[in-house]
């Protein structure tokens, strides 16, 4: 339950953080993609379902405010959250390499899928330009930001995990 509330609160929080704060802190003309980061991390922390649901609502928020059609970002990020959920069995709190690799791969696949759905379909074929000027810088910036955000999310998650374990023990003792 607590986990669900945590996910439900962090989606709008990160959306506002991204669209109000990070849009003013552009590096190399890009902003980091916190929505992909969030779906990726929650999928990895918990399971496929949480990742997929979190991704769906993250993407839907992006679509409502900025999208051309509803559902495009939702579809892509749902898939990303689900696939990252597949790695939740490999979750170890002290290992930071695997989540970083997953975030990189996720953001790259978001970039390419979005390019194909929104740009290639309209005949914008210079994939080299878009890779170098949009997708790659976005990956680097997202990775940079996730180095700071991931430990915070991990810290909060560990707190709740410990709390849950303690509660369960108390119940067993009684």
């Amino acid at each position, binding site marked *: 339950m607590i986990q669900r509330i945590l996910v439900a609160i962090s989606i*709008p929080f990160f*959306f*506002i*953080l*991204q*669209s*109000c*704060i990070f*849009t*003013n*802190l*552009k590096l190399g*003309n*890009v*902003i980091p*993609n916190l*929505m992909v980061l969030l779906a990726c991390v929650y999928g990895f922390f918990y*399971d*496929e*379902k949480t990742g*997929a*649901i979190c991704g*769906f609502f993250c*993407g839907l*928020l*992006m*679509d*409502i*405010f*900025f999208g*051309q*059609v*509803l*559902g*495009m*970002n*939702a*579809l892509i990020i*749902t*898939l990303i959250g*689900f696939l990252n*959920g597949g790695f939740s069995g490999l979750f170890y709190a002290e290992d930071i390499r695997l989540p970083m690799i997953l975030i990189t791969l996720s953001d790259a696949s978001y970039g390419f899928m*979005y*390019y194909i759905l*929104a*740009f290639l379909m*309209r005949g*914008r074929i*210079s994939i080299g*330009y*878009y890779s170098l*000027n*949009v997708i790659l*810088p*976005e990956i680097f910036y997202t990775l940079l930001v996730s180095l700071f955000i991931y430990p915070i999310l991990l810290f909060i998650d560990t707190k709740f995990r410990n709390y849950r374990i303690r509660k369960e023990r108390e119940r067993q003792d009684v």
Partner: protein
Amino acid sequence: MSPIVRKKGERFTIPSKYLLLILSSISILLMVLTYGTSLFDVPVNTVAGTLIVPFEKGVSRAGEWLKGRKEELTSVRSLLEENARLREQVDKLTEENIILMQERYELTDMQALLSLSEVYYSYNKVGARVISKDAGNWYDTFVIDKGTNDGLALDMNVIAGGGLVGRITKIGPNWATVTSIISDGVNVSGQVVSSDLTLIATGDLQLTDRGLIAFSQLSDPDGLVVKGDKVVTSHISDKYLPGLLIGYIDTVTNDANNLTKSGTIKTASDFGYFSTVLVITDMKNTEYE
């Protein structure tokens, strides 16, 4: 046996594969339904507006403050240079202004003589604050803090810094999304002021960084259009009001068909550097009523 079967005493859960299938289907269905229609706009935009926008209004101030600090750090030197340049420009413009004022008196007299009441269009405008910008890197859209409650409507034109910025493409009760003219794939019908030739200006992500937009379908057999010519929105545009400044011609090249020309336009407004915009509340289709 189907995996979705509820056993006694067990909580009802959907297998994750089915959940993925359901969510993907909803997404695809939404894409298909909202591609041509605005079926869900009112409920979805209202809910999103009440949940998100009140927070955004506060947080965007923090964002602007951060942006200010970032710019202070990086741009003291360039500001000094700019200041010197602007001072020169002020002197020049003051001089120009005096001449123009004289000409204006003359013009007013002439207009009175010819009984031309409205040469320049004057539109009703409403100011609005930019509260958040596109959460992705592919398009150029932003959200303003006014919506249908403040009398705004879909397709209203938005200007800033003297030039056309874009038009409202989505609207909720207390917010509206503006798609700017530099956003990839957005078309504006324009007109070169000096020669009255029309062209189609199209936003292109590859040019956005340099403050340019592409133009095409300029039929100019006599080579009248040159660099620096002023481009405004044309009379034949169905969404944009006529006479709004788009920018100035930057390059002109002949197309392979030798009939039309294309090139780039330097936009008049400095995209990415405004925090307030003006929304023109007059609409193209009601203008002649």
